[in-house]
């Protein structure tokens, strides 16, 4: 267990971007809150306070989440390649740490440590922004940002998203680790080429597009699988000519049972475990480039 902690710490030492990027995003948002135009913040006072609060929380959260997804993808692609490239793998392998442990530490960093760090950063940012805006703008706008129940709901949403993302994207994470452990150069290119080759090959030889469809489903369908869009009651808010639809409450919105029992989730997770085992094997075999 102790070794696992050291391995994760080592990842954070090596990849300082893990904490620097959320710090920079948070900093930029605080700058906007500090020096942004107050009249924009106080615009549309007719919009209900809860909707403003929700939009604010979700906008900040979604920004962090999007950047986190991109960074975690890059991290997974690089993590087993970088130390082979600079040959430091020969140092890491001189220590009594199994290849399985090494690969799992990188996977855990990408799927748990990085998302949790972004989550904390997003939380701190929203708190500080809400505080700054409350001081700068007038009470109505400020008050909209302090709905304790919305805040609590967002915490639940984040944690649910971290868990659901980790399970849903396990096959993609496993695939990226395989490429990272296998490629001798151009990991980015090697991560894209095989799926494209498979898609084109399938179309040529069989005239079908099952693979393309499955990859597409994997990339975009997490919300559809993890959230209960139909049952959740939505609140529609009209602002000028636009309508904003926001869920009335998070509780009816999350669908953990449906997500876990969805065959797509289960098949994906099984595939992911297989690919991770494959990455561990490659890590054992491939020491240098």
């Amino acid at each position: 267990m102790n070794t696992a902690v050291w391995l994760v710490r080592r990842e954070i030492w090596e990849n300082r971007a893990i904490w620097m990027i959320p710090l920079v995003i948070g900093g930029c948002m605080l700058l906007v809150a500090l020096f942004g135009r107050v009249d924009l913040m106080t615009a549309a006072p007719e919009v209900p306070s809860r909707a403003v609060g929700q939009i604010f929380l979700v906008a900040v959260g979604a920004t962090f989440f999007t950047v986190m997804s991109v960074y975690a993808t890059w991290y997974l692609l690089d993590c087993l390649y970088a130390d082979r490239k600079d040959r430091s793998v020969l140092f890491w392998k001189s220590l009594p740490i199994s290849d399985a442990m090494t690969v799992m530490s990188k996977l855990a960093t990408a799927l748990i440590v990085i998302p949790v760090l972004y989550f904390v950063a997003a939380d701190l940012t929203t708190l500080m922004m809400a505080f700054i805006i409350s001081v700068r703008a007038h009470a109505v706008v400020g008050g909209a940002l302090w709905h304790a129940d919305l805040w609590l709901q967002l915490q639940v949403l984040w944690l649910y998203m971290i868990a659901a993302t980790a399970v849903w994207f396990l096959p993609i994470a496993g695939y990226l680790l395989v490429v990272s452990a296998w490629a001798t150069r151009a990991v980015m290119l090697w991560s894209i080429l095989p799926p494209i080759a498979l898609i084109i090959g399938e179309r040529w030889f069989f005239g079908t597009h099952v693979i393309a469809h499955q990859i597409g489903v994997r990339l975009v369908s997490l919300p559809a699988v993890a959230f209960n869009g139909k049952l959740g009651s939505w609140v529609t808010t009209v602002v000028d000519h636009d309508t904003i639809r926001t869920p009335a409450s998070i509780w009816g919105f999350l669908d953990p049972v449906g997500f876990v029992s969805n065959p797509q989730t289960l098949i994906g997770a099984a595939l992911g475990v297989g690919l991770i085992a494959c990455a561990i094997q490659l890590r054992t075999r491939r020491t240098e480039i």
Partner: protein
Amino acid sequence: MSSLIEAHDLTKKYGAHLALDRAAFNVEAGRIVGLIGPNGAGKTTALRAILGLTSYEGQLRVLGHEPYRERTALMQDACFIADVAVLPSWLRVDQAIDFVAGVHPRFRRDRALELLARTTVTGRRRIRELSKGMKTQVHLALTMAIDAKLLVLDEPTLGLDILARRAFYDALVNDYMDETRTILITTHQVEEVENLLTDVLFIDKGRIVLDSSLDSIASRYAAIAVAAGDLDAARAEKPFYERRMLGKVVLYFEQPNFERLQTLGEVHTPSVSDLFVAKLSGGAE
């Protein structure tokens, strides 16, 4: 006492190329063994197999472990410096010490700090900021602070200047080596290590062509320098290698009749490097 490393029929193929061809050798505890061979002879492949970094055919036991399958367990008792400059450039010296202390049960932090205190390296420096010699000093300090039974060094002084090389070997012999330890070392610069070795393994084309202690080299091999006129008489003793130098010819013999040789000229024991050249350029049987 059983051998620390036992290899039989050790074979490694890269496609059609045989990097190791049924190599067989033993390494006993408490020895300093030089694995010596020309480029591409299979030195590095042999070390990689011993360290569990590559798969192989044949039998190989290192400290009772099967290296490729049991690398993690093996690395509790063995450590290695494979080539210079493999410490990650982003790592800070104090982080390196913390990390190894955290994951290696046999690492002694006080020992590492003591070794580092003798160098000019300070803890907050990153590896990338250090010179090649300093990197090697850091790596050596980390490795020597591990209470390991076997230390494997693959070209440890490659690219270092003469001062750094000398300091490296001095530290190895004076501060590290004792009867509980065993060192296996490969290097091109045979002259530099031949004074500290107790045993040599010559490897050529994936096969072990000589496995001997330095003591037994003296009783097994001989060289004499003769003038051109005595050449035929000397050749009758069946040398396996001849080398012309400064108007004389040096002849190398394996298991000669020492008494008869002495009548031909002054008999001396060939140095490891001379024997290496003789063995590999002459008839390796």
